[in-house]
């Protein structure tokens, strides 16, 4: 029963995450910024509207939004909340997590190409190319964590990470940074892509959902928000010590998510977006960090942790 | 009784020469072929051909193997000769002379196989050269004249050197005092090793020239390419084997005299050189008959390698020589058909053979598979046995260069054969060739050869196996 509560916290947080980030960014720029519940209002409005669908599209375009939401919610079941195990946890479940995200990406890219517009094609191509760098990094990271804790599923790995020594702090810090980077890339936030731009040629994620309207748009926007929250939840698991009781765990979890959302907002307001041709170099940072984590762990292991 | 094998062909040759009318010469030719096959069948049935110790002529098991191959190849060539002449439109007189020469050539080769005396063997080998010279020149073209001249002159000089070798051998074996193989082999220990080695060197160069083994092979591509296709089939299918038999007999004496190591290294050097030369030229050959000749050089190289590895190696070599002779004869006869169809010997001019003349096309491809040693055919099994012998003899590393060169050769052959077989037939074909279609007699021999090969490849009959084992000295 307590796990369901954890899941509930996760889903609720996804509604406020982007809103909080936008508000922090506006507040930092001296503006009032949209109310926190703005996103919830948008979703309710969209769910109630009709739709305009491109003439050239096939069944893929209509099938994509449900796949996106289903995949994200399924991935949410796999992610543990600090202090307790995830709803579904078995050895190697982070592989299923990554491949669920992969399924969502596959249908998103296909849907983008289905509309037959050159902008959506460009966005899809960039998304697909950058994704090829993110996936291996995620696996290296999780693999090295599994290596050090000797466990093979999300819940065990994240719960057994508490160790006080110096190397542990360094490893945790590196993991948090790389996961945060991954959040920025997967959510198309911060230096990688600017969600508020109106120029289609520069977008990556936003352009792929350009042609959606009504409930489809609602599904897709919610799924994107949920994806960012999932990765944020992983970071939160690292930040919050796992041995605290459930009650405090949920509160600490929500607080951690808020801090991460604020972080995203801060990063976006400080760093301008990177030139499109330099984005791959930026994204290369992610696998590089993951490999350093692995190197440090291997080195630490040999010296007898 | 054994003299019949020599006299009947030469007598029939005389008749053909004298009579000169087309039906008679054809009947004589087919009669001779039938006689050969009958004699061989009788020999297989166990009839003893007087292989007594003292006599100069005798048929032992290794002789029987080569005699069978020769009889089969000759029968195929005999069947193809009428078609060949009908296509080239020669006068009956010329055909009669051709048939006479062919029969004398057959008699000479039979002599080589039956000879039990080294010098007699030499005489018959020289006789084969002389009798086949005019056969090569039968097309009366400048190129066939040049080929015939090179063939006669180089082989005669080579064989003269072989005779020097024979005399050196008799110098070395004063105590044995006879050149009969049985005596030489029995008392090989008493022969002076220095003179024996010198003799083997000369004999290897002499008979090697006739056998077309590198570095003394250079005449072979010219002779086999310019001769008419039935003759080149006989040359490649039977004559090369006969000269190989000569070397095999002397190698047997060398091994019994304890000098096996020396002769083996020589044979291995010759074998690999032949493979190298064949590989070098097959990559860039332009004329498809010369291509077949180079493939013969390669196969003779393989035979030498087989011979160098004792009885199991000889078994593989004999199986390989049977496979090579029949498949090469089939390929040469088919090349005659292709020459008739396209009127040119250049590989580039021949295209879409399967579409233009499906029977010849498919025979051309299947016989290539047989020559190149693809599985259903015995050449593959002999290749496997040979490599097994390499490893058994501890020199497994030889399998590497051996198979590498064979791969290059198969690439050279394959790309040429399939360049000719596939694709669309060219529009501009010389008028004379357009109407001509190979009739049954130009296709049946090849099919028979390929069927025999398939039979040998899939399951070697028991009798054939036991004869091959005794021939190779592996015992019953």
């Amino acid at each position, binding site marked *: 029963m307590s796990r369901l509560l954890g899941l509930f916290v996760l889903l609720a947080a996804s509604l406020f995450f982007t809103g909080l980030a936008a508000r922090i960014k506006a507040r930092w720029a001296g503006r009032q910024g949209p109310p926190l519940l703005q996103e919830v209002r948008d979703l309710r409005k969209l769910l109630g509207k009709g*739709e*305009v*669908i491109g*003439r*050239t599209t096939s069944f893929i375009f209509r099938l994509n*939004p*449900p*796949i996106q939401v289903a995949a994200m919610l*399924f991935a949410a079941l796999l992610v543990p909340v600090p202090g307790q195990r995830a709803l579904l946890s*078995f050895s190697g479940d982070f592989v299923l997590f*990554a*491949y669920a995200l*992969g399924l969502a*990406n*596959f249908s998103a*890219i*296909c849907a983008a*190409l*289905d509309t*037959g*517009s050159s902008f959506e*094609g*460009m966005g*899809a*191509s960039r998304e*697909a*190319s950058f994704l*090829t*760098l993110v*996936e*291996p990094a995620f696996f290296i990271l999780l*693999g090295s964590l599994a*290596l050090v804790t000797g466990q*093979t599923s999300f819940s065990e790995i994240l719960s057994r990470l508490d160790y006080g020594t110096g190397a542990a702090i360094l490893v945790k810090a590196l993991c948090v940074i790389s996961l945060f980077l991954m959040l920025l890339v997967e959510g198309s936030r911060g230096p990688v892509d600017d969600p508020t731009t109106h120029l289609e040629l520069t977008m990556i994620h936003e352009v792929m959902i*350009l042609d959606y309207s*009504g*409930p489809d748009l609602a599904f897709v926007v919610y799924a994107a928000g949920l994806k960012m929250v999932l990765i944020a939840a992983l970071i939160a698991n690292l930040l919050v010590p796992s041995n605290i009781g459930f009650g405090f765990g949920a509160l600490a979890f929500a607080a951690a998510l808020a801090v991460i959302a604020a972080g995203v907002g801060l990063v976006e307001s400080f760093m301008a977006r990177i030139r499109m041709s330099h984005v*791959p170099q930026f994204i290369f940072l992610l696998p590089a960090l993951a490999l350093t984590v*692995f190197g440090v762990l291997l080195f630490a*292991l040999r010296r007898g942790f | 009784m054994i003299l019949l094998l020599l006299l009947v062909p030469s007598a029939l040759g005389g008749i053909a020469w004298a009579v000169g009318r087309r039906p008679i010469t054809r009947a004589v030719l087919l009669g001779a072929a039938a006689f050969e096959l009958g004699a061989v069948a009788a020999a297989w049935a166990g009839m003893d051909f007087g292989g007594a110790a003292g006599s100069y002529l005798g048929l032992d098991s290794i002789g029987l193997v080569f005699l069978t191959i020769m009889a089969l190849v000759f029968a195929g060539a005999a069947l193809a000769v009428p078609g060949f002449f009908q296509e080239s439109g020669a006068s009956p007189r010329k055909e009669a002379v051709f048939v006479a020469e062919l029969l004398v050539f057959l008699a000479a080769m039979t002599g080589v196989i039956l000879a039990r005396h080294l010098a007699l063997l030499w005489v018959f080998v020289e006789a084969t050269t002389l009798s086949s010279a005019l056969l090569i020149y039968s097309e009366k073209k400048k190129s066939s004249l040049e080929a015939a001249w*090179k063939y006669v002159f*180089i082989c005669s000089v080579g064989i003269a050197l072989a005779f020097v070798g024979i005399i050196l051998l008799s110098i070395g074996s004063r105590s044995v005092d006879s050149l009969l193989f049985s005596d030489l082999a029995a008392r090989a220990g008493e022969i002076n090793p220095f003179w024996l080695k010198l003799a083997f*060197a000369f004999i290897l160069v002499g008979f090697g020239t006739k056998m077309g083994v590198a*570095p003394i092979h250079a005449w072979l591509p010219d002779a086999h390419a310019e001769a008419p296709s039935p003759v080149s089939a006989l040359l490649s299918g039977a004559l090369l084997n006969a000269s190989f038999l000569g070397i095999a007999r002397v190698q047997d004496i060398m091994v019994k005299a304890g000098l096996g190591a020396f002769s083996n290294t020589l044979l291995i050097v010759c074998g690999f050189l032949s493979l190298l030369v064949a*590989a*070098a030229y097959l*990559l*860039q050959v332009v004329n498809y008959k010369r291509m077949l000749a180079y493939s013969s050089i390669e196969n003779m190289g393989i035979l030498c390698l087989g011979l160098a590895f004792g009885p199991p190696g000889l078994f593989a070599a004999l199986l390989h020589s049977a496979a090579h002779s029949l498949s090469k004869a089939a390929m040469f006869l088919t090349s005659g058909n292709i020459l008739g169809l396209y009127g040119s010997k250049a590989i580039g001019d021949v295209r879409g053979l399967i579409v233009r003349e499906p029977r010849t096309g498919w025979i051309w491809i299947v016989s290539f598979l047989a020559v190149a040693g693809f*599985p259903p055919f015995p050449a*593959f099994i002999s290749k496997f046995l040979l*490599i*097994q012998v390499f*490893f058994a003899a501890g020199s497994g590393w030889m*399998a590497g260069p051996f198979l590498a060169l064979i*791969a290059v050769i198969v*690439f050279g052959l394959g790309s040429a054969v399939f*360049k000719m077989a*596939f*694709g669309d037939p060219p529009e501009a074909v010389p008028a004379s060739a357009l109407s001509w279609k190979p009739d049954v007699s130009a296709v049946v021999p090849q099919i028979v050869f390929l069927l025999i090969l398939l039979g040998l490849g899939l399951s070697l009959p028991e009798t054939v*196996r036991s004869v091959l084992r005794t021939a190779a000295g592996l015992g019953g």
Partner: protein
Amino acid sequence: MTLVLVGTGLFLSGGLVALFVRPSFKGTVSAIFAAAAQPFLLLPAGRVLAGGGVEALTIPLSFPLGPAALRLDPLAAFFTVIISLGGLGAAVYSAGYMKMYRDRPASLSGYAFFSGLLCSAMVLVVTVQHALLFLVVWEIMSLASFFLVGFDHSKEDVRKAAVYYLVAMQVGAACLLTAFAWSSSSSGSPDFASFGTVFAGTGLAPTALFLLFFVGFGLKAGFVPFHTWLPLAHPAAPTGVSALMSGVMIKTGIYGILRILLLGGGANPVLGYIVFFLALATGVFGVMNAIAQPDLKKLLAYHSIENIGIIGLGIGLGMIGLSLRNDAIALFGFFGALLHVFNHFTFKSLLFYGAGVVYMKTHTRNIELLGGLARSLPLTSGLFLVGSAAICGLPLFSGFISEFGLFSGLIRGLTVGGAAPRAAVLLGLAGLAFIGAMAVLCFTKVYGVCFLGSPRVPHREAISDGSALLLGPMFALTGFILLIGLCFPVILPFLDRLVRRFVPGGAGPEWAQLVTLFQNVGLALAVLAGMLVFFIALRRLLLRRKSVVLFKTWDCGYQGESPRFQYTASSFASPFLQLVAPLVPFTHRHRLPDGLFPEHASLESHAFDLVEIGLIRPLGAAIRRALGLLTWIQTGRTQNYILYGLVFLIVLIVWIIGVR
């Protein structure tokens, strides 16, 4: 075992009977015989797979072959299932597909005969356990597929591809010939069972022998340095054959490697790493080149190389597990590899059949000229989508299950063993993920550009979907994909005996662990499927009374709309290809528009295979140059020829006198 022989005979006689039947019936006859052969092959195979016994049969052949033993053990049974299903699918599909070549009766009968011969030869390859007979059947398989590749030989590139394929097979067979000759001569008998003693021997021989076997079988399977024939041969063959070759025939290479492992080969731990890293390179290199290919069938051929890499990764992992004496890793490794063999057969054949229908309807394989086929070929595009999702290993499809097995093996490899295996396994983990991501990139490109959007080049005449003969096999294969993807535990008992033979000691507890793990995964996937259905229904519910308007796609208000605006395949792949530029050499040839009213401007880009340019062509040129040094011999002058003989003689004499 006799039933299997009857089945093989049926395949062969199907080919023979088709020779004498009217051209229009050739396809149906061979399909009927293929169908008839199914029970004879599947029943014994199923019995052996489930029961675990070994059905043996010895054929007394004469001397050179000796008594040949044919044994149907679980490994052979598994591959027999794949071969018989593949043969049936290819026969039925070809019955429909070959109608395109009605005007060439002669080559049609050749096609029917050789495809029957190919299937029967493959069944024999996996059951024969006698060195020489194995090589004979192996080469007959190569020959039959050579003639099938050379079917459409009026085209120049088909001829070149066919000869290239023949020579590649010849080199592979040469390695196998040497390896078999070596092992049978040192173990005394040509039977496979006796090779165990050779592999158990000490010193360098067993390792060298295994490497020889690996090169020989790897060349047929398509591991990286020897794969260059595959992207040439498979697209050249008619689709029915390229599906059979890609889905089934290259698996005989994998079968060979597994058979050698079963016989005790690869004991040396270093070999495990060699296979592991070579497979990783194969996978990554294969999919990178696939992304750069505009030709549909060549792209699928490169994907076969990628999947062979994944299978090889499983085998390598299994070998590392065995050398670390950790049954769990070995069990998962071999399980992933074997299951991926079957999965790859299903989705690769499905994709090739789809590509065949596309080629049959649009007569072009260049995906840049296709587009919008989803509307004109709805069924084919739906099935192609299932195939693409499965090959990318996405959940709910069979690809995911075998890759998940590999992943769990890799993860277990991380948690146990020393520093070196951990580093290797992590590299494998990252590599597999990288391959998965690139596969997603590649197949979104193919599916998006070919089937989605609107047709880039207007079709001359209206095209309708493939006939029943074409779609039948595709539906069957989709059934297999979904069966394994969703209710996978049903298949597990069949793989039980097969996978556990590879681990000495049977790995009972580990297998139970694996079964429970996959039951959990099955449960999770069911939850995912349930959510999917729920949300689709929710969307339909939400839109029930709302207005859904079909309108033009948003194009920034630009009025002159044209399908050529759509993103092309090469531009879709270019951001990624710039990242991996050195590995996939690219040449651009373009002619800039000049003058005030430019008539013609063109841009042509072509991707090369790094191994082909960097390794195979220079090697070929070097051989040609080296052998070219010998071509001074045939000068035509008689005197020179005699001089060669004399020089040789003098050298011999000097050697004799000197050595004495």
